[in-house]
């Protein structure tokens, strides 16, 4: 019996304006706990928009997002922030680390904002996270003293800080070379294997192929879902 970590029900995101624009146009999706989902699609198809909705960074115009069975559409901005802090971890194409802080302080930031652990426990966890991502020696370096791949790994460590149920990553390897891409991807894969849910947007078909499920989006709608069950790929067309 698999547990649903993240569920989207008839999700719509519209931008009202002189010319109204529908970024996400009725998406139904359920992601299981510990599942690794890759979202692919042409540029401008609404992948990022969907990801922001799934990570509660943006609010849907219609529909519902349930995180661990909890509906979120009625939450206030502050309550959504609280859910983001503890339940969702974000990784973006750009690392978005605070430039004045060291790697360790950047990783400690969400923990400090949540304030659930003692300073000692936080440091211990922060160092352990950095260590597990191969950044042990770089804990006291600032972002501008790190390489692109290292920065992205610090950003992943920061996303993992509060042990969120769900990690969402928007083209986390978009700006990295092949070696770093490989490294970041295997880290995300490990995270999913350890039971956390990972949703990644990527343009790289090879990487998408390593996900448990691949969701192809066109014009804000799911065009195709590819499952990877027991080694063989099962293709299923959705109209």
């Amino acid at each position, binding site marked *: 019996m698999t547990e649903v970590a993240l569920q989207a029900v008839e999700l719509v995101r519209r931008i009202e304006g002189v010319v109204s624009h529908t970024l996400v146009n009725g998406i139904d999706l359920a992601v299981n706990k510990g599942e690794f989902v890759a979202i692919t699609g042409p540029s401008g198809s609404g992948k990022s928009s969907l990801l922001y909705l799934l990570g509660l*960074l943006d609010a849907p115009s219609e529909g519902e997002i349930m995180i661990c069975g909890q509906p979120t559409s009625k939450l206030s901005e502050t309550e959504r922030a609280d859910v983001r*802090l*503890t339940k*969702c971890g*974000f990784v973006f194409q750009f690392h978005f680390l605070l*430039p004045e802080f060291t790697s360790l302080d950047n990783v400690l930031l969400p923990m400090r904002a949540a304030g659930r652990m003692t300073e000692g426990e936080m440091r211990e966890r922060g160092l352990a996270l950095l260590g597990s991502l191969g950044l042990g020696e770089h804990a006291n370096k600032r972002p501008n003293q790190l390489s692109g791949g290292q920065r992205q790994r610090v950003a992943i460590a920061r996303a993992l800080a509060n042990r969120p149920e769900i990690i969402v990553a928007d083209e986390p390897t978009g700006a990295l070379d092949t070696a770093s891409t490989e490294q970041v991807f295997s880290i995300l894969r490990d995270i999913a294997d350890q039971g956390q849910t990972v949703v990644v947007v990527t343009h790289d078909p090879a990487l998408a192929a390593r996900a448990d499920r691949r969701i192809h989006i066109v014009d804000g709608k799911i065009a195709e879902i590819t499952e990877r069950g027991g080694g063989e790929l099962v293709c299923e067309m959705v109209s």
Partner: protein
Amino acid sequence: MKLLFNIAWTHVSARVRQTLVGMAGVAMGVGFTIMMAGLMQGSQIDFLRQLVDTMPHITVDDERRSVPTQPAEQEYAAVQMADIANVGKRPGIKYPESVMSSLRSWIPGDVAPSVTTSAIIDHGGARIGITLTGIDPRREVQVSKLAAQMREGKLDDLSRAPNGIIVGEALAEKLGVKTGNTVLLVGGQDTRLNSTVAGLFRSGLKRVDESQIYSLAGTAQLMMGQSGVVNQLRLRLNDPMSAQKVAAQVEAQTGYKSVSWQEANADLLSTFTVRDFIVLTVMGAMLLTSSFATYNIISTITHEKRQDIAIMKSLGMREYAVRRIFIIESIIIGVVGILFGWILGYLLCYGWSKITIFNPLTGTTVPLQIYYSAMHYVVAGGISLLCCAGAAYFPARKATRVHPVDIIRGAS
């Protein structure tokens, strides 16, 4: 909170020069405000002290505030009497000794009798109208600082010279008289009295020094042609500020018109109120302008840190927590600025106190009086801090309202 402070600290410490400018702005505002407050209140207190030292705190006159009800009015309610002139002699205070001893039993201070009349002083062709107050030198010591204000002679000399008088230095200068000279006093009923200048005093209040002279009670009674009359009681209180309250009680008890020094100088005191209002407005404006540099810095920082704001919000920090970072920054600038402002304010006050200046109220050249009060520092600091917090609030609110998605889309 510690996290917010840490972030705030990284922002301000990375902008040393801008931060220093902001601090200097706050410091100058606070410093000048403290200086102004010290100067204004100093001169005011100095003046009030002279007033309180020189004037009796309460004078009880042999008049009533309203025309007393006529017996006919009491008998026949229908009849109303108007325009009843008090013709003739001053009634005087009845049984002054028993009134005084009854007052002494409860007032927090002392009381002495006196005889007040107006007269003209005539010397070498100069004729000047003056107020002549007849006193009892032994009791005078308890109700006024006259003994201490004597420049030449002593109070006791009044009884040694024939019809001795004590004249203000300013008046003596005008008339060109010296101690030991004889002058002519002309009273209401054309009583003429040759009197000897027994001493000179200086109260520091021009008005008093130019028009007040003292004599023994007997001399004043002679001028009025009413021997034995006492028409004024003068009270000195331990706490001059309670004069208004005590005056009302004295009036209620004795029925005589009792005037506190505040009432007697109401016109002067009301100009203080206007002056205070103007000064407070200027000081408020000064503190407000001093926080402009802070506003500028916070605006710049919030603009430069748009991305950080977006990322902190997207990580799940609440909007008001992020906003607080910038308010903390401005408070850091404010607090350090205020500390320097306090030092600056103190130094400015100290500098001013070394300057002597001609004071037209007292007609003398004295050092500027500065009033040092912790209250000035606390209030200037408090207002300045509020201004800084306000100066940060608006740019911070604007910047933290921005939706993180808008920034993240723009950046990647």
